[in-house]
């Protein structure tokens, strides 16, 4: 593997951060982007799965549901009462 899982997680985090508010990213979008960047021989879907798990377990990213499940940065729930 050309990158460590932690580096992969960091790159995914940056992607989510940059697109926050502009585009919702699914786990599959992050996986495809990383495989496209490093090449199929260098990276597997399982590597990406582990990287996403690191992001979720650390709380740096959370899943959101708006007509499908997306990966986003933690934020205040828009529909929650004050």
């Amino acid at each position: 593997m050309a990158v460590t899982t932690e580096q992969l997680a960091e790159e995914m985090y940056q992607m989510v951060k940059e697109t926050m508010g502009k585009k919702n990213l699914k786990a599959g979008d992050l996986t495809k982007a990383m495989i496209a960047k490093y090449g199929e021989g260098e990276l597997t879907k399982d590597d990406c799965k582990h990287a996403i798990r690191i992001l979720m377990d650390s709380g740096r990213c959370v899943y959101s549901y708006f007509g499908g499940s997306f990966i986003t940065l933690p934020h205040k729930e828009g529909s929650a009462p004050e």
Partner: protein
Amino acid sequence: MADEKVQTKLLDELEKGPWPSFVTEIKKARKVSPVCDDLLGQLELSYEEKVGHWKHGGIVGVMGYGGGVIGRYSDVPDKFPNVAHFHTMRVNQPSGWFYTSNALRTLCDIWDRHGSGLTNMHGSTGDIVFLGTKTDELEPCFKELTEAGFDLGGSGSCMRTPSACVGKARCEWACYDTMKMCNDITHEYQDELHRPPFPYKFKFKFSGCPNDCVASIARADLSVIGTWKDDIQQNDAEVAAYAAKGLDIQEDVCGRCPTRCMKWDGKKLTINNRECVRCMHCINAMPKALAPGKERGATLLIGAKAPIVQGALLSSVLVPFVPADELMDTIKELISRVWDFWDEYGKNRERVGELIQRVGMGNFLDAIGLDPVPEMITAPRDNPYIYFKDEA
């Protein structure tokens, strides 16, 4: 106090008639759960105004999981503060829905401590559904559930909680061990269950025989339906006993066989097993006389769904027969190819059945490396999605 506080003139209509009423049950729970008055009040308001007053929560959940919690908020929290947050938790049910009374008490006690106390046993996917809690109670509730041996189920674009009929635990017609298969698949795909990786939801359902008690053919993206390859087991003495007791075998058994593969001459029942389509009618009609064959396994079907984004679909045959002892390996191998294809080509909120409709079954089979076989279609020329090429 409750009756004075909330007038439920319209909801009271739902208590009339001989059938169970969720309004009656929520009213009963008022004595122990303070949220019930506000819940009834908000629902009454919705009936009066013909407008729903729930907002969908997008990010509530427990740490690390992307499924299992469905966020709900009231859009009139000032009027009904006790249901300002009213999140649902889906709890993974045991295979076949077998509980000890102690397990049920444990679940109810946990929910009394952390939520409204209201449950739905069970949701349409099969989960234990805990209705109504606050965001702050999610983690403590999850902690107690896991300590008691339970886990959350699926929601969102996850593999949803697999479900199975009671199978061999109570049914002699089960052609494979549905409960074991359901449990094994649940454990095998924990990541897909808790961390949504797909374009949309994906459901497994396991039925032990073609009676399909969990309706997998209508609701599961991957239906696993028990079947047999050899002849129906027949006990002639019991057939005669049914006839002696007054069963009209010609009319009620042979006459209702969809392929007319049975004959009754008044003494002997003859079955042309080559023409049998495993509909189970004759076995259901004469359970002591007939039984599924001994060479048992399952048919794998793909693509069913209830109508949400698009209309309902029934599943299509993918693998006509897998022996029971090869089932787990076959499902694992096949599902990885199906998920790869769906991952690559599925649109957001597109179920796998809808993807197959869009690209064509022929292309789908080609992509996952399966050859078309006659059992995939209901009748010749009925399903023109497969074209045979002339081999020069």
